[in-house]
């Protein structure tokens, strides 16, 4: 990554292409947040690449004035892996959705996280297939009525952050499309070396409007959003409530904000991260911000280190290579046919 500060403005990161999402789509807010965040990261446009799969959110790269690759359904992570291995100097952002990353591309999402490729993965979760006109997705709640499930979906949804944690991700965060904290989450994701997994709750105004309203609505926000900060108490509802450990049940519980047992957020605690991710939405707030961060060496650095070690002391001599092994010399033709 380029460590030198590059001075840009949000405008420098907007391409000349007309944005084609539905009016009111949460994707606009995420695009603005990203374009606003990029100048603060001090990165160069030419070294930045946005790689996406297929779906509404995957149009994202066309609207960024850096390099971009709109690929095929579910495969952005695999293409990003090749690009980053070929040029580790690139700052790679993967833009994906709930169907793209967790249904057709679930395998690649698992492996890019397991390998810990240095990249930022922004998963726009709207719990629906938007671009194909509203079918239920792998994150849709049981009972979701859609053109493909007119009587309600019966299969249980995947929890994206739990999937990421189970896959071995070393950075897991959550944000909300229209929330002012999103740039901070993006900055933290970018600062982390390795695969940074960010689930963004994104409202699909056409096919799944207000599906996250229970915690995104203004009136509900204080009571239902727990913004985590490393080294700080886990407080919400304006500090009136906090999260503590129920030692008997080995689970989390909501306690008054002044309870001495209110937990201090330690993003390196994997067990705690699992509990925060899986807090049931009815009785608990939703955990937001950086839930888990515990860096490990990145995939591309390990590959390059091994490639260099294996190559060290050897000269790439093509002529010697083709003549390797047991050889023999034919001086002249032994006889004619």
């Amino acid at each position, binding site marked *: 990554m380029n460590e030198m500060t590059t001075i840009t403005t949000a405008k420098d990161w907007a391409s000349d292409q007309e944005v084609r999402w539905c009016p009111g789509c949460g994707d606009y807010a995420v695009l603005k947040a990203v374009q606003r965040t990029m100048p603060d990261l001090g990165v160069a446009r030419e070294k930045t690449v946005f790689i996406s799969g297929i779906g509404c959110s995957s149009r994202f790269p066309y609207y960024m004035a850096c390099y971009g*690759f709109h690929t095929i359904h579910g*495969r952005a992570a695999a293409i990003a892996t*090749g690009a*980053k291995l070929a040029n580790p100097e690139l700052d790679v952002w993967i833009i994906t959705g709930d169907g793209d990353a967790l249904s057709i591309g679930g395998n690649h999402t698992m492996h890019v996280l397991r390998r810990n490729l240095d990249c930022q993965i922004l998963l726009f979760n709207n719990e629906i297939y938007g671009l194909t006109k509203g079918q239920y997705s792998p994150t849709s709640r049981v009972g979701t009525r859609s053109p493909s499930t007119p009587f309600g979906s019966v299969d249980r949804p995947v929890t994206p952050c739990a999937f990421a944690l189970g896959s071995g991700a070393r950075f897991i965060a959550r944000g909300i499309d229209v929330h002012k904290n999103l740039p901070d989450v993006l900055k933290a994701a970018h600062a982390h070396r390795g695969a940074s997994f960010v689930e963004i709750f994104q409202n699909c105004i056409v096919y799944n409007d207000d599906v996250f309203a229970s915690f995104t609505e203004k009136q509900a926000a204080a009571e239902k959003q727990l913004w985590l900060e490393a080294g700080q108490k886990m407080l919400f509802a304006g500090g009136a409530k906090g999260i503590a450990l129920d030692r008997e049940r080995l689970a989390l519980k909501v306690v008054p904000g002044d309870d001495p047992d209110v937990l201090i957020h330690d993003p390196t605690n994997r067990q705690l991260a699992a509990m925060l991710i899986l807090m049931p939405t009815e009785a608990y707030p939703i955990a937001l911000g950086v839930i888990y961060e515990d860096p490990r060496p990145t995939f591309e650095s390990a590959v390059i280190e091994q490639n260099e070690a*294996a190559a060290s002391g050897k*000269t790439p001599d093509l002529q010697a*290579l083709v003549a390797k092994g047991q*050889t023999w010399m034919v001086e002249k*033709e032994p006889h004619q046919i």
Partner: protein
Amino acid sequence: MATASHRVTQTEATARPPQEAVVVRFAGDSGDGMQLTGGQFTLSTALAGNDLATFPDFPAEIRAPQGTTFGVSAFQINFGSCAIDTAGDQPDVLIAMNPAALKVNAKEVRDGGLLIVDEGEFTARNLAKAGYEQNPLEDGSLAKWQVVHFNISQLTLDAVKPFGLGNKEALRCKNMWTLGLALWMFDRDREPIVDWLKKKFAKAPELAEANIAALNAGHAYGETAEMGAPFKQHHIAAAPAEPGLYRTVTGAESLALGLVAGCQLAGLKMFFGSYPITPASPLLHHLARLKEFGITTFQAEDEIAAACAAIGASYAGQLGITSSSGPGIALKMEAVGLAIMTELPLVVVNSQRGGPSTGLPTKTEQSDLYQAVYGRNADSPVPVIAARSPADAFDCAIEACRIATRYMTPVILLTDGYIANAAEPWRVPDMSNYQPFPVSFFDTPPGEGEAVMPYSRNEDLARPWIRPGTPGLEHRIGGIEKAPGTGNIDYRPEVHQEMTNTRVGKVLGVANSIPDQEVCLGREEAELAVVGWGSTFGPIHQAVRRAIAKGQDVAHVHVRHIWPMPKNMSVLLKGFKHILVPEMNMGQLKTVLRDQFLVDAKSVTKVSGHPFRIAEIEAAIDAQLGIDSRARVEGTTFTTSAGENA
């Protein structure tokens, strides 16, 4: 002790003078080490200066139940003092390590051929497992061959006794005893094998010594035992060959070397993305050890990721290569479509195997030609190249890299299980004779107020290769239809028409930079052209050679560039009166020839998992020319006209 039962006529005995070429097949249980034995015998044959071709034939199971017919593993080698193009139709010598190996293989040995059998394995239990009701060594059922049998198992145990190995380990040395005997039979030097054993068992010197003792014992047995006329020492003179330095290569090896050379000639680092699959994996294994050539090998989570990662690497400025066999290629094809649409270089290697589905994983076939030429959604042509032999795979790999980078396109390189595993002598190429084709990345930013033009075109209709990281040329690419020049999303009808025309035209234009199709044997405008592609080269070439020797007016045309075809192909094919296309599929090249050139090409098809025999193609030639109209040879279907089997 040896017994030999004869009932061989004079004609049979002289049908094939052994001093010219001999076909030997080693066959045993899949745990008997027959591939290893064959490989080492191949090395000694090459060092003796014989020309050779091999055919390893092994089961899909890693360790099938011992002693069963489906667990039989065989290695055939044809070597001689003349040019050898095939692994041989019928073995002259079969070395069978157990009843199952004898049962499966004896019927293929030529009448009058020699069977060398380990009688120590002919127990009631093993005979039953192989499905023999009586011991074939005793019931006279092998009378049409010359049979020599002795207790190789016991002789091996005796030879390795001093080394104190357990019974099981001691018996593992049987293959070296057998190799020793074979080395004696063909007057070969044991030193290279001894050196190899010492190196292989460097960490267990007692195993090295035991194996060397077994090897020596087998050799000594041949020298001292008096076994009568059929079992004698042969000396095969060195084959004529162009002067130079030689080595043996398998197709997988030479393909790996060719890809390395191709990337070096292009001045690019290689990114090789692959997922394990038979018989393609050896390519990944070879390349994984060559990091000093700027190679990154990536074992992906699946075939799709392997192809996509290679595309990502090409996007970032390396040469992305992905490799698999038919079923894996099917999974990659959507990604190949993306590389076509985004016009990024990519080399896709298909080591074909029997199919469809899992099919015959360890057996050869060339039935993915339709898949390579036609097997994608939409109008999405890619150049297709096919290697004819292990040595030819080297040049084909270089050619694939050249076309992919020059035309900014995926290229499919077809090889098959036979080529991948077979070995042949290879004259080490002088790399200074290869013309480099260095890639230049576009890095000139547009002038003030001008747009970046990632989809502008050069005279080859290729677009510029712009690596991310290049200042001032930031742009977006993708699988969506795009405007010429800028590459901005554009679905307008006239735009899709124009871009489709351009993509199709670009690939057809590859014909401008490939050599004219040659006739590799026989004359242009012959009465009959036998047109082949891929690994059928050997049997076709020999069959045509024999036909010409018989006075028939036959030519051999072997196609490397399957798509697009050389520019002279139409005129060349129309000059022949008849066209016969032998293929290890149900007639796929035939279809392309008929479609492209409106010629009356006829098929000779075989999908048994084994290569063609020379005799099968000879018979088809005879039938076509109306001589000895034996239209049907076992296992081969000869089609006299479209869709009608004779």
